[in-house]
């Protein structure tokens, strides 16, 4: 039988997760192997090189490139402060003297006697990397970063905006099909990550922002709300660096779509736990999906096996009759069902296209033919 590819998002009640926390450039790792860390703890730090400024010294001094070094007051590597002379001419008559001042405080990066340019670099900017998840340092890479291991509930979203954040998880609706409304959010949710429901509209997002909610996990959202929040129409799905004071993760898709029961139940079950989320999404060239990580504290993990997670995303071997699936495109978008038949021959669908299909049976006993490309497998 042919391999039926079943894309799906990972969803695991308990999974051993390793998160690499890497510096953008070599620096210092300040924790050691075996340390227990909290999500906000700094694990590594470095300094990012400052901005480079180019000064065309030969033009300023009206000299030849080959004479540049003769007139430089500073050499490569020297530090300078803003408005400090870096080069000057030495004419017989002092009033004809030309001086070139440094436009910034920093260092001399390079002096080119070909182009006559002097490159200056601003002082480095410190960058700190935190642990992001509660866990244990299991590996340190000298000057590069660390690997934190944690046993956690792990849920992948389909799309998100906003970067890493951590807070206590609170499910604020009663059912996965509810709308997450402004009245569901109150002062008690400040600094927390709220979850649940099939959709959230602008009014509730505003309320969450005003209240100081750190993150929202919800089934669906309209494109309109994302546009309003970002202030522009999102063209290419590369997100995670938006400066919007909140992280939003949708688990199902755009529009109103009930959160998958399993996802909702897991979130409900882990309510009250410290949760780390990241909305970063990249749907191209190395897909990155948003993630929800809810670590267990140590007492919990000691009782259970370290790896009990089952993940839907890795089931590439194929679909079988009886497998649970979800439809991910119109019609019946978001509906769950069971695979009833897997005909191998191509079939004509409404558009008249010939497609590889499957027959799905919904919980009410109704059936439908769906292109295999339009379903994802979910955990049974």
């Amino acid at each position, binding site marked *: 039988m042919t391999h039926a590819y079943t894309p799906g998002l990972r969803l695991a009640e308990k999974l051993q997760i390793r998160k690499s926390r890497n510096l953008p450039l070599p620096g210092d790792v300040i924790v050691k192997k075996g340390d227990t860390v909290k999500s906000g703890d700094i694990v590594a730090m470095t300094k990012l090189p400052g901005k480079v400024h180019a000064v065309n010294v030969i033009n300023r001094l009206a000299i030849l490139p080959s004479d540049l070094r003769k007139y430089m007051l500073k050499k490569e590597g020297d530090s300078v402060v803003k408005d400090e002379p870096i080069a000057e001419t030495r004419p017989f008559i002092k009033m004809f003297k030309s001086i070139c001042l440094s436009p910034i405080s920093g260092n001399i990066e390079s002096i080119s006697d*070909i182009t006559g340019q002097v490159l200056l670099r601003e002082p480095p900017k410190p960058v700190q990397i935190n642990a992001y998840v509660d866990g244990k340092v299991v590996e340190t890479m000298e000057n590069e970063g660390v690997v934190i291991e944690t046993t956690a509930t792990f849920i992948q979203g389909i799309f998100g905006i906003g970067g890493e954040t951590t807070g206590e998880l609170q499910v604020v609706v009663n059912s996965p099909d509810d709308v997450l409304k402004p009245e569901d959010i109150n002062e008690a949710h400040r600094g927390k990550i709220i979850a649940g429901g099939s959709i959230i509209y602008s009014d509730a997002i505003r309320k969450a922002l005003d209240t100081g909610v750190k993150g929202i996990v919800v089934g669906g959202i309209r494109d309109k709300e994302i546009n309003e929040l970002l202030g522009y129409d*999102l063209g290419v799905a590369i997100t995670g660096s938006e400066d919007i004071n909140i992280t939003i993760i949708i688990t199902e898709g755009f529009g109103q779509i009930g959160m998958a029961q399993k996802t909702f139940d897991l979130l409900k079950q882990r309510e009250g736990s410290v949760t780390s989320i990241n909305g970063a999404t990249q749907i191209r060239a190395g897909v990155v999906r948003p993630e929800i990580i809810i670590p267990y504290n140590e007492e919990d993990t000691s009782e259970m096996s370290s790896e009990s997670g089952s993940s839907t995303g890795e089931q590439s071997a194929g679909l079988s009759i009886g497998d649970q699936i979800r439809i991910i495109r119109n019609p019946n978008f978001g509906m769950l069902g069971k695979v009833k038949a897997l005909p191998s021959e191509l079939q004509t669908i409404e558009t008249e296209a010939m497609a590889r299909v499957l027959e799905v049976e919904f919980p009410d006993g109704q059936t439908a033919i769906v292109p295999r490309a*339009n379903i994802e497998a979910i955990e049974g």
Partner: protein
Amino acid sequence: MTENLNVIIATDCGSTTTKAILIEKKGDEYRQTFRGEAPTTVETPFEDVTKGVLNAFAELEELSGRKILDGEKIITPAQGNTGVDIYISTSSAGGGLQMMVAGVVKTMSAQSAQKAALGAGAIVMDVIASNDKRLPHEKIERIRDLRPDMILLSGGTDGGTVSHVVELAEFIGAANPRPRLGMTFQLPVIYAGNKDARDRVNDVLKDKTALRITDNLRPTLERENLGPARQEIQNLFLEHVMAHAPGYKKLISWTEVPIMPTPSAVGEMMQAIARKANINVVGVDIGGATTDVFSVFDGVFSRTVSANFGMSYSVSNVIAETGIENIMKWLPFEIEESDIRNRIKNKMIRPTTIPQLLEDLILEHAIAREALRLSFMQHKALAVGLKGVQKLKDMSESFDRVAEDETLIKMNRLDLIVGSGGVLSHAPRRSQAMMMMIDSFQPQGVTMIAVDSIFMMPHLGVLSTINEKAATEVFEKDCLIYLGPCISVANSGKYGSHCLDCIITYSDGKIREESLLFGELKVFELGEGEKAEVEITPAKQFDLGEGKGQKITKKVTGGVVGLVIDARGRPLDLNSSKGKEPIEDVLSKWNTAFDAYPE
């Protein structure tokens, strides 16, 4: 060994789908026999392109009954119904080849560098030029932030400026960019500028990058020499970029000839078509992430890539660029804007889904029209003659105000448009593909429209490099499908007024006479290979390529859709019926003329 091939298997690893085709020698000729496809698997959780290739092979095995794989090993050579003689592949997965180019003058060496990179199959992320008005630190930050797969540095004619080129090299050095894939290796930089600056550039960049030096791509203002730089790009693509993409090391070991970037392979085929028939061709390959446009005009090959116009990953960007109203104007039914927006975003986040509802299909076709239109506009802007060249002009030229940078693409001299890519090749009815191409390219005069039957031009492009006979035979018999000629009038008029009279004389002597009103479009029967003579007399303000009001008489050959006479004017204006007939009705009439969609 590449001569004596009986069974060839070829894949194209696209950003969304991996397409495999089987080519077999039947008697004396090569034919494409089976096709299989599977989602591309360069991404998590698989992160191994070969998984998708194996899945596509498995589908081929199932359909063809030929045993191709022994576990995960390709069986070679072919014996009876087992194995294949050779495996070849193209790839654009993982975002394709993403490059940055740099040159001294934006419209001269930098533009030549851009053409070289595009011609080699790259996506050009940015063009840095000494005169691009960005401050040095902005340039440096841009180089660092974009993290290209490769940088092409040019600038200075041989014997020309050294300092500007070295300055650009200094910026690249200061940025110390890290490649997108493979953290451990140095970023490949190709220097193809003034030969006098080679040593200096080498001093600046040799320790910080994997520097390669090749011939100047603009040795004089009057001459471009893009070949060596293109070749070097393709070499580095394989050695550096591909080798670091997930699973490609394995894939490279499977293929017997180097993996080609998909656009480069398609470009090979487009040039072959133009060369063979001595015609002007525009080709398009609309994919999930990018849209490539190719043209060969008077023998000059140009290629552009619109990196963020596509039908899945980039679908949302088409809307962001063109505006939702430009999508909605193509829909012959009422639908809420928010509903469309959500549908489009859902396609973006689940790019491998396919339209199941007719409404969704029509929406995708609307988006495709805009993606094609925008990509073609970008192509026309870049497919220009060399700038900076002193040209002798006579008085008449001065009066004609012939701009040096005029596009090479002349719509009324265009003979053939070839469409490729999922939305065109897999449109359930061929007439849909023809409509999309006419609406977006808006040909003028007489233009043949064709489509790549099942999207196999990349495969044939790479095959042509090892066995031209096989590639040509399959191309002619199985790949290219002529949809039919399109005869279109230029200029505009009053909606519903008389536009043209035509007389079609079929080869069997049958004559058909028709009149078309402005805003109308008709499709006449003219089957594949069938010939006819068409005489058209336009009303005085309309032009069929011979001047306003001038009658034309042309011999045309039919296609699977028929002969299209398009009296909607150029540029095509969907508002011309405003106040006279609702646009939904007009669109429905056009669709009906083409019998484009089921009732």
